[in-house]
């Protein structure tokens, strides 16, 4: 925990961690000749330090997946700056991008769609190494076994010859994680990797991600709509609404002292879905105001160490901010 705190306190939204720096990212999707453009991502800035897990929180359509795709260099219309390990990603040629992608991996939401049904587990995990011409046959075989063991598919020999349809959902997602980890990437972008999994399997995958972070120092951008889940995994969280970041801060601070009205609304929803408990914080909730939050203020302002919010009202010095409760 101490480590996480010191990590996060050095990062600010724009000039964050040296691993990934996203600055003023804009993505527009054009609706050719129709009613103009749709701004999917507007002025998003954040950073990720090595070994840090940043949660990107938001609902469908908030732009969180588009941010991940832009970081991977998959969105041509992205403007602003995405620096990965010091190198600007936007505007790189496909060839140069391919090299960078060795250090950068995606884990998709749906393990039923993201694994090729005609490939065996061995081939699925090996593919990235082949593309990047890593090692020879024997060393690749060893790397496949190691990667599978690391995601608790043991003994690996039991799984290498299987096809995806012979695996359960949890096992498939483990294969997808093993595929992402086999090249030892510096940054993994995980897009709702557990949302399709049953509750009892979810924590297993999260445990694997955490362990991998601890042993390899991998950084993560973890995309989810579930703040409760993010609380258990992420060092910091960034909340997106309508293509903008509206709040960013250490996870415990955001969960204990949410500043932006939208973050409060999300928390309220999560609490409402949670089983009844004695300690409920009742946040005022206004269903209609959701859209206007995004337009109130554009810039993030630091209101507590490392805790940023894009809301005019909440960043006023005269306003009494609730004090952060010590929970640990």
């Amino acid at each position: 925990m101490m480590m996480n705190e010191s990590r996060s306190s050095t990062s600010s939204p724009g000039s964050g961690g040296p691993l990934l720096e996203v600055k003023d990212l804009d993505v527009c999707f054009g609706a050719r000749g129709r009613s103009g453009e749709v701004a999917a991502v507007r002025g998003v800035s954040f950073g990720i330090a090595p070994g840090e897990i940043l949660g990107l929180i938001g609902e469908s359509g908030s732009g969180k997946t588009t941010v991940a795709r832009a970081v991977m260099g998959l969105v041509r219309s992205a403007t602003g700056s995405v620096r990965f390990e010091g190198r600007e990603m936007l505007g790189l040629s496909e060839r140069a991008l391919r090299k960078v992608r060795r250090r950068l991996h995606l884990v998709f939401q749906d393990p039923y769609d993201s694994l090729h049904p005609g490939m065996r587990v061995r081939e699925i995990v090996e593919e990235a190494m082949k593309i990047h011409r890593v090692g020879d046959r024997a060393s690749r075989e060893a790397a496949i076994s190691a990667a599978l063991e690391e995601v608790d598919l043991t003994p690996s020999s039991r799984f290498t010859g299987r096809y995806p349809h012979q695996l359960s959902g949890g096992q498939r997602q483990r294969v997808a994680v093993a595929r992402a980890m086999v090249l030892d990437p510096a940054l993994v972008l995980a897009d709702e990797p557990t949302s399709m999994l049953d509750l009892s399997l979810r924590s297993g995958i999260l445990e694997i991600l955490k362990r991998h972070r601890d042993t390899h120092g991998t950084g993560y951008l973890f995309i989810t709509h579930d703040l409760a889940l993010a609380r258990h995994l992420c060092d910091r969280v960034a909340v997106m609404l309508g293509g903008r970041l509206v709040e960013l801060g250490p996870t415990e601070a955001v969960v204990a002292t949410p500043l932006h009205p939208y973050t409060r609304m999300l928390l309220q929803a999560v609490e409402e879905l949670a089983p009844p408990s004695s300690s409920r914080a009742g946040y005022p909730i206004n269903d209609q105001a959701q859209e206007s939050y995004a337009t109130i203020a554009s810039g993030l302002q630091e209101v507590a160490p490392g805790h940023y919010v894009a809301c005019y009202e909440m960043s006023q010095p005269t306003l009494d901010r609730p004090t952060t409760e010590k929970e640990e």
Partner: protein
Amino acid sequence: MSTLLEVRGLNTVYRTTEGQIRAVDGVDLSVGRGEILGVVGESGSGKTTLATSLMRLIKPPGRILKGGEMLLDGEDLFRLPRSEMPARRGRDLALIPQSAMHALNPVIPVDKQVAEAITTHGEASRKAALRTARERLVEVGIPPERHSAYPHELSGGMRQRCVIAMAIVNEPKLVIADEPVSGLDVVVQARILRLISDLKESRSLSMMLVSHDLPTVTRVCDRIAVMYAGRIVETGEARTVFEKPLHPYTRALVEAVPRVRGPKQDLQSIPGDPPDLHHLPPGCNFEPRCPAAFADCKTVDPSLEEVEPGRKVACLLYHDDERE
């Protein structure tokens, strides 16, 4: 509370290339009038097969074995001829299916679709049906200006509301909802569940709500039945089950729930793989993954026994006293 639905000895099997599997294995359950029963289970636990069986919509290679009973208001629907069922569906019992997007016809405005659910059953004129349909749409929170919208013009939450309107429009005795909020954003999930709770109050709706999400179910349901490998392994009053789970599987599920309040605890996962219905262990189905298993669990298949009033569990840990 009087009993509305009473299911006894329901078995649903599927023929597969590797042999026959029992997706629903000797299930007994009941739903009271104005009660919401939550059926909780993970992928492959048989919960959707259970819901589909009660609607009598199981298709080959699946079938419901003879000998089971499904008493709705005292009438055994399993004894009705199959041809009688379409007239009963929607009226006696209605289904809220898993995916609202796929449940709606993409080329018909939603008010017409809801109206069609009424005219299908005869009596009402088209005009009267449309009027009723619009009233129901307002009741579930769709503003009048959206009534003639096509499904693709509505958000996921709105579509789910339309499907709910369609389910209640004929005032069925029982509503069966299969994962009514999965795939929706958290804020929308909370709103749809609020709607279900409101409808329960205003119309004293009787419902069986099937879900993989234990906390959600705890929130809206009066009682819970937990399914594992086709069987009910624990039932009881919803909050009691969540706060004091007895079966080791239920306990593991509760410990896997991430919480946004209170001290941060490590999330527990259940070791091992979900059960393979082709190769179930000879004893308790959960034994291979159970942290509390002992020698007998490998050989004795526990039955669902009442351990407290209104509380049943299928686990040898709680059956010991009785056997002595």
